[in-house]
C-alpha cells in the first residue's frame, strides 16, 4: 500500500499550460500517474498533449472526478490556486511553488483547516509525493524510486529526498511512498501526519525521516514516535554546522536564538529510539541494515 495517493488517484494540474507545469505534469503522466486535466482561465477548451484544459477547478473536477491536484503556479497566485482546489472538493493538494510569503501561507492554512477540514495540502515548496510504480505528483525523478516497499520516506528537503531514494533503490531496497513535506515555515502536511500514515500502512515496515534545522517539527515528531510509532525509524537531520540566524536556502531552515538546532533535533529523536545517521549515505546504510533485519 501507499499513503495519501495510489494507482487510482486522478490528478488535475493547476498551471499545466505553463512551462514548468507542462514539463512536470507530462513527466508525471509518463510515469503512469492519472493526470486527467489541467486548468487555465484563458486556455479552456484546448489541451496539453491530449490532456484537456478547463477554465477552473470546479469544472475540471465535475468533468473528471479527480480527487488530487498539483499546483504549479508562481508565488503570487499559488494560495488562490490552493483554495480554489479545496473549494472544488479536491482532497489532496500538492504545491511545489517556492517563494510564497509566510503571511499568505499562514492565512491559507488557516482557511483550509476552518473551511475544508477534509483537504490535505502537501507543501508548499516541496518536491511532491511518489508512490513508486503507482503515482508520482511533483518533481521527483521517477527513475530513482523503486517499487515494492518496505520503506516509507518523509523529508523536508528535495535533494536529500532524492539522495535517500537513490541510496535505497541502488541497493535494491524499495519504497512504499516518499513524501517531501517541503522547507517552508508552515507546511500543510508535517512529519507527524506522515508518521501516522506510515504507521497505519501495513506495507510500510520501516520509516526514514529527513529533517533539517529550523522550527520544532522534528522534536514534535520525536515525541509522537516515542508514543505511537512501533516501526523502526532512521533519521538524518541536516544543518549541524549551519550558523544561527541565517536562512539556509529554505525559508524555514533557520536557527532562531537557541531554537531549531540540528543537535537538539537529533537528541530528541535519539531519545525516542530513532537511529540517527550523521550523513545521507550513513542513513541509507543504516536503513538497509534495518530492512535486512526485518522479520
Amino acid at each position, binding site marked *: 500500500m501507499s499513503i495519501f495517493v495510489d494507482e487510482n488517484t486522478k490528478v488535475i494540474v493547476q498551471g499545466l499550460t505553463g512551462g514548468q507545469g507542462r514539463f*512536470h505534469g507530462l513527466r508525471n503522466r509518463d510515469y503512469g500517474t492519472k493526470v486527467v486535466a489541467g486548468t487555465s482561465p484563458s486556455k479552456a477548451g484546448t489541451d496539453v498533449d491530449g490532456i484537456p484544459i478547463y477554465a477552473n477547478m470546479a469544472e475540471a473536477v465535475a468533468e473528471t472526478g479527480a480527487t488530487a491536484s498539483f499546483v504549479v503556479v508562481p508565488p503570487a497566485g499559488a494560495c488562490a490556486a490552493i483554495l480554489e482546489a479545496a473549494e472544488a472538493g479536491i482532497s489532496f493538494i500538492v504545491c511545489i511553488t517556492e517563494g510564497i510569503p509566510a*503571511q499568505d501561507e499562514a492565512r491559507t492554512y488557516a482557511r483550509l483547516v476552518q473551511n475544508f477540514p477534509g483537504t490535505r495540502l502537501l507543501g508548499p515548496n516541496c518536491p511532491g509525493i511518489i508512490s513508486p510504480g503507482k503515482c508520482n505528483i511533483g*518533481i521527483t*525523478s521517477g527513475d530513482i524510486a523503486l517499487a515494492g516497499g518496505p520503506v516509507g520516506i518523509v523529508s*523536508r528537503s528535495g535533494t536529500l529526498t532524492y*539522495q535517500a531514494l537513490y541510496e535505497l533503490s541502488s541497493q535494491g531496497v524499495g519504497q512504499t511512498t516518499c513524501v517531501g513535506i517541503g*522547507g517552508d515555515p508552515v507546511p500543510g502536511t508535517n512529519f507527524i501526519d506522515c508518521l501516522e500514515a506510515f504507521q497505519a500502512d501495513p506495507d510500510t515496515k520501516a520509516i526514514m525521516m529527513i529533517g533539517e534545522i529550523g522550527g520544532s517539527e522534528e522534536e514534535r515528531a520525536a515525541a509522537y514516535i516515542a508514543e505511537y510509532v512501533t516501526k523502526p525509524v532512521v533519521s538524518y537531520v541536516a544543518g549541524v554546522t549551519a550558523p544561527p540566524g541565517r536562512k539556509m536556502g529554505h525559508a524555514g531552515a533557520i536557527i532562531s536564538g537557541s531554537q531549531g538546532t540540528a543537535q537538539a533535533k537529533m537528541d530528541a529523536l535519539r531519545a525516542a529510539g530513532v537511529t540517527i545517521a550523521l550523513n545521507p549515505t550513513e542513513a541509507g546504510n543504516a536503513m538497509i541494515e534495518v530492512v535486512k533485519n526485518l522479520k
Partner: protein
Amino acid sequence: MDLFEYQGKQYFARFGISVSPGGVADTVDEAVVQADAAIYPVVIKAQVKVGGRGKAGGIKLANNAEEVRLHAGNILGMDIKGHVVHRLWVEHSSDIEKEYYASFTLDRPNKCHLGMLSKEGGVEIEVVAEENPDAIAKLSIDPIIGLTLEMATAWVAAADLDEPARAQAAELLVKLYTCYVEGDCDLAEINPLILTTDGKVHALDAKVTLDDNASYRHPEWADFAWGETEDVREQMAKEKGLNYIGLDGTVGIIANGAGLAMSTLDVVNQVGGSAANFLDIGGGASPDVMAAALEVINSDPKVKAIFVNIFGGITKVDDVANGILEALNRVSINAPIVLRLDGTNAAEGRALLQPHLSDRLIAEPTMLDAARRAVELAGK
C-alpha cells in the same frame, strides 16, 4: 532580511507606530546636525544587526554637541561582536517610567501568529522566558481574524501593564500587528516598549525581520538595501543572483538544493574540515550559474579547495557536467576542484568529465570520499 534599528523605526513609522524623533549619521559632523535637530539630551546608538550594543559601549547619552562629538567619534568604527559600526542613529532621549516588551512572530508548530507581551522589557526576552515565564503574556492569533482593539485591550490587562499605559499600548499593538502582517515581517519586535514619565507609550527600539519571499510586493524595501551585508563575497553573490552564505572555512562548497548544500557543509565538518560558504545553485546548474558560483568562490582568498556536490534528479548529471566544463573555460580557478556527481545520468556525466580530470579537477565516487579529498587538499 534583518533591518537595522533605524530602518525598523522607519518601517514602524509607516504604520503609525510612535518612535522618538531622530535621524541617521555616518560621520561625527552629521551626528551633531542630527542631535541639534532632535533636541538635547540625545541618545547616540550604534547601528549594527547584533544584540548587546549597550554593554559594548555602542549606546551613549549626550547633553551637548561636545559630548555628541566625543561619543559619535568613539562609536563609529567600533567593532561590536564582529560588526563594524558605520552608521549611527541619533534620537531625542526619552524619560523612561517603565519598560515593556512586545513582539509578533509566526508560531510554526501551531501555524498561526504568536504575540508576546511582557511588563518586563529592556532585557533579553529569552532570559525572561527562562527565569520568569509567567511574566510573558502569549497570545495566539488566528491569521484570518487578526488582532482587534478589543483583543489587544484584554491582552494588555492580562500582561498586567501599568494602568496609564494600557489604552495606548493596545492601540500600538494593533498597529504593530498590522505592520507585521501587511508589512510582511517574519518578526516585529519592540524591546523596550516604553511608558515615559509624561505618560506616553512608544517604541524605543525596533527589531524587524522582513520575509524575503514577500519582496516582490514591497518595492519600498529597496530603501533598506544599505549595509545589508558587509561580506564582499555575499555582496557579489547577491549581484549574481546566487543563494550564498559566507562562512569562515577553507573548503568552497557548490551544491544543488538547499538540503544537499546544508548536508555538504555537515559532511565536510565531519571529516575534519570547514566550509567557506553555503551555496545552493538550485535545480538548473546551467553553465552561467556554475560559472557565477565558481567566480564567487574564487574571490574568497581563504578557499583552498572546492567541493562541487551534485545530485541529479530532474537535472541530468551530463547537463551539469557540460555546465562545469563550460564554466571552467570561462573562469580561471585558483583552488583544486573535487567533484561528486550522482543521480540521473551520472555515468554519462562522469564520462564527459573523464578526459578533463587532473590534479586540479578530481572526481570522487561518493559524497564522503569527495569531502575527505577536498578537506585533505584544503589542508595542504
